[in-house]
């Protein structure tokens, strides 16, 4: 197969975390009695009219600002016309225009930054973010002959984020999607949960011979609902397009889906079957006029965003860039660490504990971080106990295990179990001398220069002290005895 350069762009739909729907006052609630939250507006009753939800607009602007977008103070609503039984009005209210004159999404021309595995940073453009309404749900398993309709989801506010075709590999695509998910979480604009579908991703991909060649013909892969599937689907489509091009054929523009079991992309619609959505300006609403002061107020109250937090962790707590990235990937984790680090004597050690010990354990928990018994302040104390030489690293692991089980204060555990590290040189020397006497042959060999036996003797001493001896002191004393 020849080498091709992929060109990738993403379209991400996310559900906004408002209490009520986009164009009516109905509550948003999932997994409840079908058609519990409906009204003439979201049911598309004759004569009912949409009125924009100000909170949803605020969320979209907040997201736009977080992704460095320009805010259109005179945005436009449009209609996307198509028939489907889950779409009550026969059209979806959106902000895509078809023609430039009718294309005024609330946010446009933004960017985000990803940090690649090799540490290099890359900017990816955000073409636009627009608002739209979700459709309802059809239920096919209630009757063998009829389909049922649940309108609870009808009119739920969505944002569609469209990136520029700036992405050059499936790995980068995953980083972009992660960054968007992270931004949605940090801004609290959406729950951004991919498993339950409140965030969905479509990937557009085409190939070309070289970085400076014009873009090739693209395929759009719909509904990639995990990072893994996004990466796999893009690779899969890349290979398929490469072999098509190698065979001297043209890639056909089409819409596809990805079957993860077969690891195949499957055509849903060819270009000829593409819908004509007949977009036109929504005449039931005036243009969405936004007061610049409202935008400034949102800008002023934007929460700390991932990039800023990453930098602060590095500057304030001495964490490496890589660790800072891991710590800030998830908003809740970053907040947990932030609380713990506040009074911590060694932010770097704390970061290690969070990344290697805590996160591994959290994975085992059913409720994740929220089910964790350890309080951030307590992990801070544990790290401080190590920093103070009150306990050593090994004992700390025992204490941590107990904290995880019981949620107890580490100081109390250390006190209760008498785990305070022995730093009294005299006391340790006594133990070391006893160990050397008990293992006279090994000690003799060590003394004769077999350095490898030092570890054995340290280990024996630690065991004899019940782990409480300061390992550094044990080493020093052994060296001293060897010279005697």
């Amino acid at each position, binding site marked *: 197969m020849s080498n091709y350069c992929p060109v990738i762009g993403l379209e991400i739909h996310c559900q906004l975390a408002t209490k009520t729907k986009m164009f009516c006052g109905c509550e948003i609630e999932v997994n409840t009695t079908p058609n519990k939250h409906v009204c003439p507006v979201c049911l*598309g009753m004759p*004569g*009912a009219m949409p009125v924009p939800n100000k909170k949803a607009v605020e969320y979209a602007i907040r997201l736009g600002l977080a992704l460095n977008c320009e805010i259109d103070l005179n945005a436009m609503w449009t209609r996307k016309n198509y028939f489907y039984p889950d779409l009550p009005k026969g059209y979806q209210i959106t902000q895509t225009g078809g023609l430039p004159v009718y294309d005024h999404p609330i946010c446009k021309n933004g960017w985000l930054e990803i940090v690649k595995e090799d540490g290099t940073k890359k900017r990816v453009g955000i073409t636009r973010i627009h608002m739209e309404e979700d459709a309802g749900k059809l239920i096919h398993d209630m009757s063998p002959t009829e389909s049922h309709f649940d309108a609870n989801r009808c009119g739920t506010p969505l944002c569609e984020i469209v990136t520029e075709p700036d992405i050059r590999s499936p790995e980068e695509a995953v980083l972009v999607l992660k960054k968007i998910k992270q931004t949605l979480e940090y801004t609290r604009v959406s729950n951004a949960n991919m498993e339950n579908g409140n965030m969905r991703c479509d990937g557009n991909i085409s190939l070309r011979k070289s970085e400076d060649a014009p873009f090739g013909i693209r395929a759009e892969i719909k509904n990639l609902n995990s990072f893994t599937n996004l990466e796999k689907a893009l690779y899969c489509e890349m290979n398929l397009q490469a072999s098509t091009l190698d065979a001297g054929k043209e890639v056909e523009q089409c819409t596809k889906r990805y079957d993860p079991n077969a690891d195949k992309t499957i055509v849903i619609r060819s270009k000829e079957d593409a819908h004509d959505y007949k977009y036109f300006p929504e005449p039931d609403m005036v243009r969405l006029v936004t007061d610049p002061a409202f935008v400034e107020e949102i800008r002023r109250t934007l929460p700390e965003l991932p990039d800023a937090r990453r930098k602060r962790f590095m500057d304030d707590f001495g964490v490496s860039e890589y660790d800072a990235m891991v710590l800030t990937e998830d908003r809740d984790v970053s907040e947990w660490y932030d609380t713990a680090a506040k009074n911590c004597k060694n932010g770097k050690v704390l970061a290690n504990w969070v990344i290697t010990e805590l996160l591994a354990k959290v994975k085992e928990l059913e409720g994740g971080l929220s089910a964790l018994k350890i309080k951030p302040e307590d992990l801070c104390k544990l790290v401080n106990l190590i920093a103070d030489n009150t306990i050593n690293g090994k004992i700390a692991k025992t204490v941590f295990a107990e904290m995880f089980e019981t949620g107890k204060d580490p100081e109390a555990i250390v006190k209760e179990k008498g785990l305070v590290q022995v730093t009294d040189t005299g006391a340790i020397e006594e133990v070391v001398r006893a160990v050397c006497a008990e293992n006279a042959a090994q000690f003799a060999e060590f003394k004769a220069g077999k350095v490898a036996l030092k570890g054995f003797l340290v280990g024996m001493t630690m065991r004899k002290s019940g782990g409480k001896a300061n390992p550094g002191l044990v080493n020093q004393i052994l060296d001293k005895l060897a010279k005697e």
Partner: protein
Amino acid sequence: METIKNLSAKLASGETSAVALAQDSLAKIEATKNLNAYISVLNERALAKAAESDKRRAEGKSLGVLDGIPVAVKDNMCLEGTRTTAASKILDNFVAPYTATAIEKLEAAGAVIVGKTNMDEFAMGSSSETSYYGPVKNPLDETRVPGGSSGGSAVAVASGTVACALGSDTGGSIRQPAACTGVVGLKPTYGRVSRYGLLAYASSLDQIGPFGTTVADCATLLNAICGIDPHDNTTSTREPEDFGAKLDAGVKGKVIGVPKEYFADGLDPECKAAIENMLKKMEAEGATLKEVSLPHIGFAVSSYYIIATAEASSNLSRYDGVRYGYRSKEARKLFDLYAKSRSEGFGKEVQRRILLGSYVLSAGFYDAYYVQAQKVRRLITDDFNKAFESVDVIASPTMPGLPLKCGMNESDPMAVYLSDIYTVSLNLSGLPGVSVPCGMAGGLPVGLQWIGKPFQETDLLSVAAATEKLAK
């Protein structure tokens, strides 16, 4: 014929009661059944509401001039618990689950809704002949149409079943039937009255407005129904005013614009004479006539039919047989459910307009039709703005001639479309307009259409009231 003013005075003096008025109205509806002006008559509901009105009055808590007055409303406005059909088979069994804001306001003012009036199906027509429930008859001449689409509301007033009624106007649907039946019909400025609960035909053009036997009654109804509505994002934030405040002001000192394009070819000579005669009388009263030009007005009808049908094709998508309304029993597959329900449920004219609208919005034709029509719309609005720089109000015929003969919608739909020639431009530009009888032609009343500046209904009605006086 009665007026709100008279009826209200009789109620206040105790000469009659709301129940008696409702009974009288219901009896007249029954007696004029042959005119087919009503689709639903709300006997029980009306009598109950009338009784409530009488009770209020007895307790000294009358809600004002409309309390106890029987009113008819066009059957494309939702009234909770009552059938709302838009004169279409597709909604034959539809009972509205909520009430339109305009009706809600009327009822809040004490008005008694006696019935839902017949109309062109989904307000698509200018003859009130496309109704699933059969054509509305013109009481003045049964061989001629009563105009449309709000023909039922116009006839309800003209035949004396009610003193006033609500209609909706997308391209002339209030003014034109008012002219055909010799009553007064007002289309307010776009955004003046909430459209919430009005079954949309063309959202950017639709506006609810009143019919009455007098200009004063139209002002009274508009006072009751206007205002910003949190349910309608397109309503204007302008403060309501008393639209009847200047009814006796006369026309002295007014500058009346007379568009040269409106009084050229295509206007029936007898109608033209009636209107010019009225304008002369106004001149004698101290008004100044000034010729103005609306250079793009010749494109109004084509622009209107593109925008209106484009919006209609989308607005009517919700009638799909899935959640409510007519569903074909033949359908086995999803596509058939749509195709059959809509083919069987919509009448010919509605299907014609949905097809036309879908066509002008399709890829490849969009630029040539929809985008172009929107440009024309802008130009026509600019024409009016320019004309209004030098005049207070503009005079125009409401219709090019006498009401059309029955049956032309079938034989010559183009002629019917062209009968909107003087009215559609107001919907395109959002301007208020009122049709007032100004004289006679061929034994039938001739409507004079006054066009006002945006949100200047008070001044507009002032000129209309002067016309009314001079026509007597």
